[in-house]
């Protein structure tokens, strides 16, 4: 494949369980493609060089910076964004825990943080606080000071463990 710089290329991917297509130039960042082309504006764009983590989405399950990825690189991939979290019955358990623990204030960074936390929880069933903080170190939040997020993640990890029982660890079921 050789796409010219000004060429608009058709990109097809699975966004939150639905197949979606749109057009992107080679240089179009994935975050801009999601927002401007597919209208999925839940993902926020912060620093555009991989530092702040606001634009984090899950690519084939893995939390990734959507500003450090081109739309054309997402061809055929499974993408999950913050829009995938809440269901018919309302906010997800993680979102509710964020609300309970005041883990957000302005909310700009939250869309990305939730996607990191979801991947983290799917792979680490019983995390230590240090490990949660290490995972959150990939995100910048200027409102909260992170304490509420740490509490929310630990609480959800605990409640999910109780719900699945001690014998059915969910570690690595997403890789």
């Amino acid at each position, binding site marked *: 494949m050789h*796409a010219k710089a000004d060429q608009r290329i058709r990109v097809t991917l699975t966004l939150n369980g639905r197949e979606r297509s749109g057009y992107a130039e*080679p*240089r179009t*960042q994935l975050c801009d493609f999601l927002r401007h082309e597919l209208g999925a504006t839940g993902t926020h764009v912060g620093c555009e060089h991989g530092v702040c983590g606001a634009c984090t989405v899950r690519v084939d399950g893995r939390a990734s910076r959507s500003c*450090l990825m081109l739309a054309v*690189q997402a061809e055929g991939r499974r993408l999950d964004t913050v829009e995938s979290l809440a269901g018919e019955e309302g906010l997800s358990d993680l979102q509710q825990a964020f609300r309970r623990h005041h883990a957000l204030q302005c909310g700009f960074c939250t869309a990305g943080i939730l996607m990191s936390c979801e991947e983290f929880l799917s792979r680490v069933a019983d995390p230590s606080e240090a490990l949660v903080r290490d995972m959150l170190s990939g995100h910048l939040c200027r409102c909260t000071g992170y304490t509420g997020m740490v509490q929310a993640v630990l609480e959800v990890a605990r409640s999910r463990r109780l719900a699945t029982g001690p014998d059915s660890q969910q570690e690595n079921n997403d890789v």
Partner: protein
Amino acid sequence: MKPAAFDYLRPSNRREACERLHEAGDDARLIAGGQSLMAVLNMRLAQPRQLIDIAGIEDLHFIERRDDHLAVGAGVTQAELLEYPGLAEAVPLLAQAMPWIGHWQTRNRGTVCGSIAHADPSAELPLCLVTLEGQVVLENRRGKSRRVMAGDFFQGVLTTDRRQDELITEVRFPLARPGLEYRFQEVSMRHGDFAIVALAGVIDGARVTLGVGGVADRPVCRVFDRHEDPGETLNAFAWSLGAEDDAHATAAYRRQLIRERGRELIAGGPSDEEIAHARQG
């Protein structure tokens, strides 16, 4: 910012990737995970005419444990290598050092070979590869491959021995040898930031190989005798690296870290892992 415009090429095999590299000359950049390159493109510090994406080349996606080394293909992400079963036993230095690379979220996409190719002087993987005396395997458009010792591969800031039509196909980390100890330490402003000083050590009885990253224009190694007071040799080593002041630390602070952390590492003091563990209680 947004990247400047470029053509996007997605070759289906190694040979084609090398051909495209050869045709494009200095105007092309390879991309795999893009966790360093995309930031550089977004800030327009680099404006290549062509971007050649090798992430889809199937046969670059392997981790193989061979007789005396662990081979990591150019398609392997840092997260995948960290999750490789038995990494701590096969190459313990990597198991200690890799959690220091960027963040969970960047390790998910950043590749091992990409970090080697990028050759940032403060990066953890080049330091490990040099300290362990590993190798870089490159292939050109004629399908000819060559191996380069890590110590010869890194030639300066973001500068390597890779030739224009060559692709790094794999890197080889020597397997741990019984009885040897491996240690890694890093000092940075915050975990995940660029290293102010990173140290890697291989302790072979009285012989200690100490590698230092984040100070000179590339990772540099020196061998120490554990029975001798390393004070003066460490000081000379620290001065020889040509440390410079920057926004994060002064040159004097960098030299001091090499002297103090280096002494600790040579003496076989606690590794960062042990310190962190002790802190957690």
